[in-house]
């Protein structure tokens, strides 16, 4: 059986002042049912652009998918027209966003917002959608959900709003869920609750989850596989255990070293320099400007190749991986 989400050779470009910049370059992956793939990187690495490309929600007229295929539950989102994409969004694929404070419509009651996708995709009546919304809100453990159906977003805390968002994204029983920094805006104790809820729902509904985050701690806790992105390229892709046991790309290594840890005796080690701006990206490997292993060969883009004979662990670096 095919994976619910297949991304194959996708390149996403934006136009700035008449110039084309690739913000995601030739990214390929699959997410199987019940699997969580984490897309990791710092701001501007292309992870959110990847998510928006899959959803077909790239800002019109500015960014677009310029190559590749995105298959959501059997439907090619790149080739399809907007009507087809609308019928897939919120139906076969759901998405939750970083800011629970602003991602819900402030003037509509949450019960309606949760049930809206059901009216749209399953043709439910308003009252049937409302009844289903109640189920969904109970599902995400909103306390006394029945009383709160007609409440508005501002009457909920950040953690509760993110639960409402999850209910909303899962309303039509999609096969795929994209979670874009779902807990970044939340306190750690709330983050833990939301992650636990997500894991629970995923197990019950057999969801394929694409988790987008900058937090390697969250990755270690919930992901099955991890892909590290830098400057629009996937630089390393591995099983979570393999990744943390044997981080291979110089950027992955540096990123792990830069994270402060509660149990560490040593302080975090900074990565020198900063991510180059879009118009100043070096050709070839984009991390070369900050890399201590840099050689002349780095000005051509290395391919993804396996590490230690493990085809499930790949790295994009001339200096690392199998030759």
């Amino acid at each position, binding site marked *: 059986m095919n994976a619910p989400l297949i991304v194959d050779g996708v390149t996403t470009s*934006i*136009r*700035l*002042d008449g110039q084309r910049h690739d913000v995601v370059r030739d990214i390929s992956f699959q997410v199987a049912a019940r699997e969580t793939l984490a897309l990791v990187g710092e*701001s*501007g690495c292309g992870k*959110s652009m990847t998510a928006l490309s899959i959803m077909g929600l790239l*800002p019109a*007229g*500015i*960014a677009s998918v310029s190559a590749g295929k995105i298959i959501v539950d059997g439907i090619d989102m790149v080739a399809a027209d907007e009507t087809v994409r609308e019928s897939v969004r919120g139906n076969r694929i759901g998405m939750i966003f970083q800011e629970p404070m602003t991602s819900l419509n402030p003037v509509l009651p949450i019960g309606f917002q949760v049930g809206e996708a059901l009216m749209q995709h399953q043709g439910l009546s308003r009252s049937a959608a409302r009844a289903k919304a109640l189920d969904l809100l109970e599902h995400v453990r909103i306390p006394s959900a029945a009383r709160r159906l007609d409440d508005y977003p501002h009457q909920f805390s950040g953690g509760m709003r993110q639960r409402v968002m999850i209910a909303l994204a899962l309303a039509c029983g999609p096969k795929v869920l994209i979670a874009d920094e779902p807990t970044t805006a939340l306190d750690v104790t709330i983050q833990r609750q939301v992650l636990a809820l997500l894991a629970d729902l995923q197990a019950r509904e057999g969801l394929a989850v694409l988790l987008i985050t900058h937090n390697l701690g969250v990755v270690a806790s919930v992901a099955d596989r991890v892909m590290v992105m830098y400057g629009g390229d996937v630089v390393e892709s591995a099983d979570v255990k393999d990744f943390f046991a044997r981080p291979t790309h110089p950027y992955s290594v540096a990123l792990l070293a830069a994270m402060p840890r509660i149990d560490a005796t040593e302080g975090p080690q900074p990565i020198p320099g900063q991510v180059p*701006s879009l118009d100043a990206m070096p050709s070839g490997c984009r991390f070369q400007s900050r890399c201590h292993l840099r050689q002349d060969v780095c000005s051509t883009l290395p391919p993804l190749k396996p590490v230690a004979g493990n085809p499930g662990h790949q790295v994009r670096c001339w200096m690392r991986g199998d030759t």
Partner: protein
Amino acid sequence: MSLAASSGPPSRRHSRLTRLTRSMGLVIGLAVVVLMIVAALVAPWIAPFDPDDQDVLLILSAPDATHWFGTDAFGRDVLSRVLWGARVSLYVGFVATALGIVIGSAIGIVAGFYGGLIDRAVSASTDILLSFPQLIMGLLLVAVLGASLTNLIIAIAITAVPAFIRMARSSALAMRERDFIDACRVLGYSDLRIMAVHILPNSLDELVVMASLWMASAIRTESTLAFIGLSVPPPTATWGGIVREGFDNLLDAPWLALFPSLAILIVMIGLNMVGDGLRDATDPRAAT
């Protein structure tokens, strides 16, 4: 204004053409306004006739080669009167707006910066003053004070002050939310310095935009009052006054009302274009 430039998703960009037409609006608006001001300044030299010179033989004559805009009920040259009228209208508009902006923004910034009791008192009074329609307020003030150039300016400035207070106050309030005002206080700057060196310059964009829009509004109020008969007493030419004379002879001599009306309209459009253009140029959000 472009503080968030380096991070975040790319904001929507405009085509070159769109941006060009936007700034064209500003340029055209500025050109119109400057032209009008120049015309008003040099009116004594370029006006073909004395604006108060009556010619009983030429009452309500239609526009021709000598009297481009025709003549009025007293046989006065309308073109000359429109040119001289620009002096009154633009002067009143400019001075009243300047007074309004200086007084209003000073009070507004102080109220917004200190908050508390001062702020509540100021806000309550502006709310009350704003509950009179601007025109009615101007009307009442001129009626009470008597129609003269100074009183006209005072009356219009008074109607402008609460609006500027409100704007400067909200601008100062928004700024107080930003950390740099706290940073200033931690660095031991005096309140006066914070208001004058940090809050005022950061409010200036908005104030300038509003000033250009308000100048249009002030000129409109002046001409409206003149139309009702509450401006500088005759025979001094004012735009609104000439329109009024034209209105009284609308059936016989429609041109009499037409030309000063167009003059008012052109200045209004010019100033509004300047205001819009400046807003687009200074506030990236409104420009989108």
